[in-house]
């Protein structure tokens, strides 16, 4: 089964496409960033929606999205912009694809370490992921796929 995990920031979306293997590892197929166009955000969102639709059109069974989570402090503009872009992402995913949203805290649940600790662990990533090159900045997205294998 091919999954695409997405982590959305205010001005970019990191996408990691991977296949879950029976041995609990993930084969990375593609690791990429879709940058949001600078300037008018309304136009940039429309362009991003087209790009997401095109990207996910073929061969993707599931999308795993890092979900929004409310903090205890008032959200800054970048956080709100990220939430906007997450909405754009969700609306652009083709209808036939299953979408699951995972909050960071739910990914940590039941694990011996917190997610952020795993993300710094080169040995762990070396053992759990093979295939295409995975950038360090994309590990959080990749971890979302691994989490589905483990679930």
């Amino acid at each position, binding site marked *: 089964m091919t999954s695409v995990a997405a982590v959305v920031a205010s*001005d970019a979306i990191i996408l990691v496409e991977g296949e879950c293997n029976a041995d609990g590892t993930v084969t990375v197929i593609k690791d*990429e*960033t*879709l*940058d*949001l*166009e*600078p*300037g008018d955000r309304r136009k*940039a969102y429309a*362009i991003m929606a*087209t*790009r997401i639709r*095109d*990207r996910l*059109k*073929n061969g993707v069974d599931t999308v795993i999205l890092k979900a929004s989570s409310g903090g205890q402090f008032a959200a800054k503009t970048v956080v709100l912009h990220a939430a906007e872009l997450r909405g754009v992402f969700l609306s652009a995913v083709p209808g036939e694809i299953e979408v699951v949203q995972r909050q960071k805290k739910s990914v940590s649940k039941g694990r011996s370490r917190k997610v952020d600790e795993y993300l710094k662990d080169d040995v762990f990533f070396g053992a759990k992921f093979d295939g295409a090159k995975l950038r360090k900045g994309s590990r959080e997205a990749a971890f979302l796929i691994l989490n589905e294998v483990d679930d």
Partner: protein
Amino acid sequence: MNYLAVLQKGARIGGGVFGEVFLCVDPVQGQVAAKHFYAANFSTPAAWQEACEKALAEAQALKALEHCNIVRVHQVLLAIAGSEFLIVTEYCEERSARDKTSANSFTLKQMKHVAREAAIGLNYIHGQGYLHRDIKPDNILLKANGEVKVGDFGFVTDQLQFGFATPYGTPAYWAPEVRQEKACTELSDVYSLGTTLLNLVSGDLWFFRQGRGQIFKEDADGYPFVASDMLFLPHVTTAWRNTIARLIRADKTKRCASMAEAVNLISRLPVVEDWACDVGPDEINWTMEKGGRRFRVRWENYLRDNDSWVAWSEAHNGSAKRTLARSSSVDKWQKRYRSLQLFFEKRTPKHR
């Protein structure tokens, strides 16, 4: 049973070795473009039959690649006498991006829009396992509502052997490996897109210019290639130059690695001031409306020993002129070119 399609033929809007393109009116679609292939242009019935099959394959490729940035195919028709084959597609009222480049009057913002939308269409084509093989401004079509469509699928192919296909298209937009190895890949389409973007931000006069800093030189076989010492128009800022350079790197291992990445690079091009640039044979003028004033730059005898530039602002009626900067007559032409580049660079907005 045979059916009759009603298509009202209008003005000729284009042509080529294959035949001609006419603006037609379809009773359902309204204005459409009909690409006519003529049996009379082929020496034997077998050659005509083959041409019809290729034209049909072109239309089928268009159908397989239906996308908002790809010209839409409506139908194919064979004249009752069998003498003409038609591919009927949507009509793009503003014609092609070549019409913009040949007008030599443009803004970077407009051209970014054209290049980005074309790149999105091309990325979709690649995602479906096809290559375009003939990317150039002539094949980027423009709708009146601002939509941009990749068109002319005469050379589109999904017949790839290990990711390669034989070359077609226009040598000025060919990647070095296409000239040398006669093989097209996704990366050669990326190069052609980069050269097209260079054409878009230059206009045809600057793009095909001969002389100092000219964009093209010829290789030993007479094929044009983008010279390493070429000069951009001075208002094309560093980030834009770097992006184009990444798309047209001669070494394909160092080139932007995919059309998806090309879309990203073009999308990320920073916001620049909206200078309208008019390239003439002897002078280049830039104009911009901002804050209730008109800003202007004039570069006379550009890239010659006696060239000079001056930048000023004025009220909309041309009064109350204020000089912003000017070239120094004691400098050499390279330094004057560089000083104009810096003038535009310093005005580039810093924020995203």
